[in-house]
């Protein structure tokens, strides 16, 4: 060993650590203070009759939850892949985008020959199926081409690869479908009103979104806990080698994991259509990162965590700016929605990287 790298005197090293820890504590305290002051400010504003009305707050919360449940479905894909293979599948946002984009094509075709208006519910079902199939196919194809050869590589390499895949898919879709933003045809009229749930009027589309998300989660839960394939997925996620020893086809199970994550992203694609209607090739980028944040927030590898994280993130980015930032006197807070989501990402990864419900990693990735 070179004598030039002399050992640091212990005292000085501990001093450095204290400095970093001190900085982090300062951050925690500052964030906490900012949040408290902001919330108090908002309450003040509300009491003074400024800012959003009670009804507006209520709508904000509902829409945040519905957006959040969409994030949760996308987050499942990130969570499952991280649990099984130990890396962030950056391209999962594009898996989501592909579903909603191709769903859009089918929706437009249905709209053009009048089917959309005459049979709205069947049309939505068709879009759902198309989106799910597309997303699943894209996810499986990506795994086969870009990730399978990298099994066992240090985790940054598949991450970087997934960034490359993400670009490739984005710009392939740009080339195939053009760069203009397209809109889904309008939602069926039955959805346009409000539905009364427990005295709270909820917009029809939002209710449908939450409903679909809940049903999908239940379906997924059933699949993963009660079926043989689901058990195999859980076994492979926990300990690939021993799972192989049980006779489980590890490769096929990994493909299934990607497929299921893709299918959920496809469902999310339909939900995007209902909530936001506009789609282009860049649609997957922000929701992708936000969904990853949600996955980490809930605890990566942990499926209930992904859903919980999604809803929470929806609330953070939806309600947060109005609740906290407006209270601090910052103008035009809705612009900062994405920044709040990113800030949530940063704060979670700094202060609680294992997430709220704990992370679930495979045996190779656990420290």
């Amino acid at each position, binding site marked *: 060993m070179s004598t030039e790298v002399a050992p640091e005197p212990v005292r000085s090293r501990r001093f450095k650590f204290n400095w970093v820890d001190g900085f982090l504590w300062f951050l925690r305290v500052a964030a906490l203070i900012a949040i408290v002051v902001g919330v108090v400010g908002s309450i003040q504003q509300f009491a003074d009759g400024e800012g959003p009305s009670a009804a507006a707050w209520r709508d904000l919360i509902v829409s945040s939850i519905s957006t959040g449940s969409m994030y949760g479905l996308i987050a499942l894909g990130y969570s499952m892949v991280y649990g099984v293979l130990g890396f962030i599948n950056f391209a999962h946002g594009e898996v989501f985008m592909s579903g909603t984009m191709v769903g859009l094509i089918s929706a437009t075709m249905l709209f053009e020959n009048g089917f959309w208006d005459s049979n709205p519910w069947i049309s939505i079902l068709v879009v759902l199926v198309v989106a799910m199939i597309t997303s699943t196919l894209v996810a499986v194809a990506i795994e086969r081409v870009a990730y399978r050869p990298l099994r066992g590589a240090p985790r940054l390499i598949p991450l970087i690869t997934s960034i490359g895949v993400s670009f490739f898919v984005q*710009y392939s879709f740009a080339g195939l479908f053009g760069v203009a933003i397209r809109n889904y045809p309008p939602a069926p009229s039955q959805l346009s009103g409000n539905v009364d749930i427990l005295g709270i009027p909820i917009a029809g589309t939002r209710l449908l979104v939450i409903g679909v998300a809940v049903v999908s989660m239940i379906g997924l839960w059933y699949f993963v806990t009660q079926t043989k394939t689901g058990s195999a997925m859980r076994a492979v996620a926990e300990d690939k080698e021993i799972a192989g020893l049980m006779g489980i086809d590890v490769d096929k199970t990994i493909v299934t994991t990607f497929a299921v994550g893709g299918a959920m992203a496809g469902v999310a694609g339909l939900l995007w259509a209902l909530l936001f209607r506009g789609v282009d090739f860049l649609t997957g980028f922000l929701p992708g990162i936000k969904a990853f944040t949600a996955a980490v927030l809930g605890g990566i590898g942990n499926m209930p965590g992904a859903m919980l994280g999604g809803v929470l993130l929806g609330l953070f980015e939806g309600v947060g700016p109005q609740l906290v930032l407006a209270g601090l006197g*910052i103008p035009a807070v809705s612009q900062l929605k994405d920044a709040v989501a990113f800030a949530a990402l940063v704060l979670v*990864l700094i202060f609680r990287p294992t997430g709220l419900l704990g992370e679930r990693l495979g045996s190779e990735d656990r420290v």
Partner: protein
Amino acid sequence: MSLDPLTRRWGLIGGAIMAFTGAIGMLVSFDERILISPILSLGYLTLLLAPAIAGHMAARGKVSVLEEPEHDVAQGAQKGLVAGLIAGVFAVVFMLAVNPFDLSEFFPNINDRMFDMMTFDFGLGLGSVVLIVASALAGAAGGAIYGLDDEPREGVFRSAIWVILFSLFELVVSDVIEVDAIVDLIYARGGGLHIWSAIIIGVLAWWLGVRYKGRRAELTQMAKDSEAGSRLRWSLIGVAALLVIVLPMLVGGIVNELLINVALFILMGLGLNIVVGLAGLLDLGYVAFFAVGAYGMAVLTSPLSPAFSPELNWWVALPVVMVLAAIAGVLVGTPVIRMRGDYLAIVTLGFGEIVRILILSDWLTPFLGGAQGITRIPGIPLGATSVSGTSPELFIYMTMLLVGVAAYISYRTQESRIGRAWAAMREDEDVAEAIGISTVQAKLLAFVTGAIIASFAGALFSAKVGTVFHNSFDVLVSIIILVVVIVGGMGSIRGVALGALILIGVLGGPKSQGLLGEFAEFKLLIYGAILVYMMLQRPEGLLPSVRRSRELHQEEAAQDAWLDKKGSFIEEPEASV
């Protein structure tokens, strides 16, 4: 001749690529650029490259680590022919299936121009036949090339590459050779090489390669041997430096503009190289430091800076900007010190985006100009004149100066104590801590150094363009710089330069065009494909530092050795044989 599944698979892949490149509009777009006038355009090269590669891979067959592959031209050509045939048929089936419908509403690039191009303008009937034949021939050629012995094969590749380089770099060459008459001898009026110039270049490349093969081997050998090699390396660097200094004077404004972009990316690449390549920290939000430099300079020098307008001189403002960047480096680095690699990557991405959103926000508009940004940023004062983007021939030298400084910093840190600390940290953090390296200090130093170098680029950028606004600072820039560093070779200065030259120079940067405008729509797709390819085949990059190559392939070697990884749960109580 039986159809072996590998040949069939490559044929289908080739065909799929042909259909894909057609459907996204790449073929039509590339058709605008003529490589060899009048017979070969970039579009047709791309179209036929797919079956050629399919033929090559089919001829290669299954790669066995143990056996030496046989080289047989006839066999290779045969397999290649079949693969190319399948590819062509696939492409034709695609066209026939799609043609009857008007898909332009959903697939704007599947249009008449695509069909015309893919059928060689012969119409769907005859054109399909021509396509199949051409594809089969391309496949056969690709397969035959595989079948050649090493020397002729290298010769063919060398010739092809030099011809393509000369045709793509037409603008640079014609700028350097200012005499129109000579340029007309080489290049045709409408663009592209004359057939005879292509032939001459090809033959020359082959011949020179063969002739000097021995000499080249000698030189490479000498370069490895430290003493004589060191002198050789320094003289090569000297020659390269001389060329680099002289080049801007020879070329015109457009190329100089391009060179400035390349140089800026080399600058940022060098900075990111320190963070990613040397210290092993995957920073996806590097553009934030670039923004600090650019906006810092803008606020300090522009008379139109809202809120705060000291209107300093560029040179005076530069140290201030550097300090700001260093602070930013600490602010970003400290929270992420303890994170594992992939989380660090995403957090830094988040930081980068937060910075961009804040720049754009109404909240900070009073300070940073919001969506309009800050304009009227003065150029760099040099004596009597002010150097900015309006005089690219001068500006490029300013940029080169700072690139030199950054390169020097890179080089010195790499060889120094901190460089070794980074290397140790990269290998195994815990061990590094155990032998007394403060990883906290090392990581922060990496971030700060990287941030300062990025701020150089930002300061230059401000002065060059005269305006800064949020659009220039999105995540795309961070990722492109990362691709440059990775493709060029992590940890290697030459690698970064080469990466920037090839990627930014030829394909174009995130917001700017490269040498070839046709690539513009597709460059990010190509970037993505290149990144994936590099990670799968050559993660150490094109010109890696030797150490890095060893590191990455060591892990590979450990994985290739199934003995090591597979069944590792069956452990010996004490690890030994």
